[in-house]
């Protein structure tokens, strides 16, 4: 596959590994947060950790929209299907995530709710056209990469007069989340200090550009390298971060130049702005309430807003005690620090979002590094 295979080349990996080993100062640690769950997955799937020295560490961030969706929003989605009888369309990722009482969309489907997995909002629009007598709701999740497709769907629905289509909007924003992590010092004074830099999200940046991260460098003195999705991209980005740290530089650098520019995709940004507006605050599973971090559908498009079309009951999110997802999502703890990991909490019986989503830190550790993690837990 063009633009993929070249960035998984073993010889280049070796070259980069040698360069990283030479650049990393053995007298210090480097802690880089990869914000994006896709990067967490790539790091584990390719064993990137084996190719960097032990003093270069990845801290897993909360960039997993599946992981951070609060249980009660998921309960809302289930309620739409069960109580309001809508056809609920969802990306595959959400189907197994447990809401309150361990109930998932898949379980609700087994109980008779009309829940359908789709690859794209295009498919959801098709379902709405094919079922004019039914309400069709699309469960919108994801960061700025996935938001424009929801915007296009709403605009398209309006143009066609597709009156039975709406979106249940849970789209969230990346820069506010990163800012929230760095401002967490009130909760954990040592946290921000422990991070030496960020691997910026690949495809969010395709849409929003590299400019929105410049505040991180300016305000928090943290280097950022916008990293591509393939393992060689991650490695080259780590090298660039190490150079910045060694040279005492703080800048936003772009490694993923083949699809990321400073300005991003203006058309996509305009569309998002046209359809969505900022929520004053939004609850993130694990991070609590984060101000101005999520989007709602504008009044102009209220007809396509599932929250306006359907009366949803008030809900309280209840998390399982002892579940360390909140701390793990903030990068403050690791899966081995959670008492439930590997015992009560496994991919078969997930207690929290970090284990359900295949890119959640706990799922990644379980799948790829289970033995080491359990051994570390036993040793402590």
């Amino acid at each position, binding site marked *: 596959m*063009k*633009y993929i295979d070249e960035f998984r080349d073993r010889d280049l990996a070796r070259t980069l590994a040698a360069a990283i080993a030479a650049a990393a100062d053995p007298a210090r640690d480097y802690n880089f947060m990869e914000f994006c769950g896709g990067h967490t997955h790539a790091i584990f799937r390719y064993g990137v950790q084996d190719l960097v020295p032990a003093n270069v560490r990845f801290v897993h961030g909360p960039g997993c929209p599946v992981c951070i969706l609060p249980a009660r929003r998921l309960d809302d989605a289930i309620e739409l299907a069960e109580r309001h009888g809508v056809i609920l369309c969802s990306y595959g990722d959400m189907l197994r995530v447990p809401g309150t009482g361990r109930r998932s969309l898949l379980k609700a489907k087994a109980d008779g709710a009309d829940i359908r997995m789709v690859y794209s909002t*295009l*498919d959801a629009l098709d379902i709405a056209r094919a079922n004019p007598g039914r309400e069709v709701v699309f469960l919108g999740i994801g960061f700025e990469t996935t938001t424009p*497709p929801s915007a296009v769907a709403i605009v398209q629905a309006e143009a066609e007069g597709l009156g039975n289509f709406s979106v249940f909007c849970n789209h969230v924003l990346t820069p506010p989340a990163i800012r929230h992590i760095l401002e967490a010092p009130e909760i954990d004074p040592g946290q921000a200090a422990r991070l030496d830099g960020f691997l910026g999200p690949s495809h969010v940046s395709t849409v929003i550009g590299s400019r929105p991260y410049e505040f991180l460098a300016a305000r928090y003195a943290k280097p950022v390298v916008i990293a591509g999705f393939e393992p060689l991209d991650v490695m080259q980005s780590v090298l660039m971060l190490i150079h910045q740290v060694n040279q005492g530089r703080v800048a936003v650098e772009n490694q993923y130049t083949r*699809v990321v520019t400073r300005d991003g*995709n203006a058309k996509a940004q305009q569309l998002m702005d046209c359809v969505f507006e900022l929520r004053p605050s939004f609850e993130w599973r694990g991070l609590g309430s984060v101000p101005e971090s999520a989007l709602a559908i504008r009044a102009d498009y209220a007809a396509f807003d599932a929250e306006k079309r359907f009366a949803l009951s008030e809900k309280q999110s209840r998390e399982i005690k002892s579940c360390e997802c909140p701390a793990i999502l903030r990068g403050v703890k690791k899966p081995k620090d959670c008492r439930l990991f590997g015992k009560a909490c496994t991919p078969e019986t997930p207690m929290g979002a970090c284990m359900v989503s295949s890119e959640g830190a706990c799922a990644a550790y379980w799948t790829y590094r289970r033995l080491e993690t359990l051994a570390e837990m036993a040793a402590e």
Partner: protein
Amino acid sequence: MCLAIPALVTALHDGAMASVSVGGIAKQVSTALLEEVAVGDYVLLHVGYALHRVSEEEARRTLAMMAEAGLLQAEVADMAQMTGIAGVTP
């Protein structure tokens, strides 16, 4: 997050749609998020939408820089030895 994959545009259609090929797999996708697109372009595909054109020149440059990483490090190391910069290991 955000699985996106480079895809080759093979045909353009009305209604801001296009046919693309990903390693031989054919898919109908939306080009509503692109300013301009032409047959033969590579675009980044995410949930059925083309998000951005992939730049061939930048891809090549990135790979070349990766290949040079080893050489560059050697140069930096030489410089460090000559000027005694702390924290740079030869």
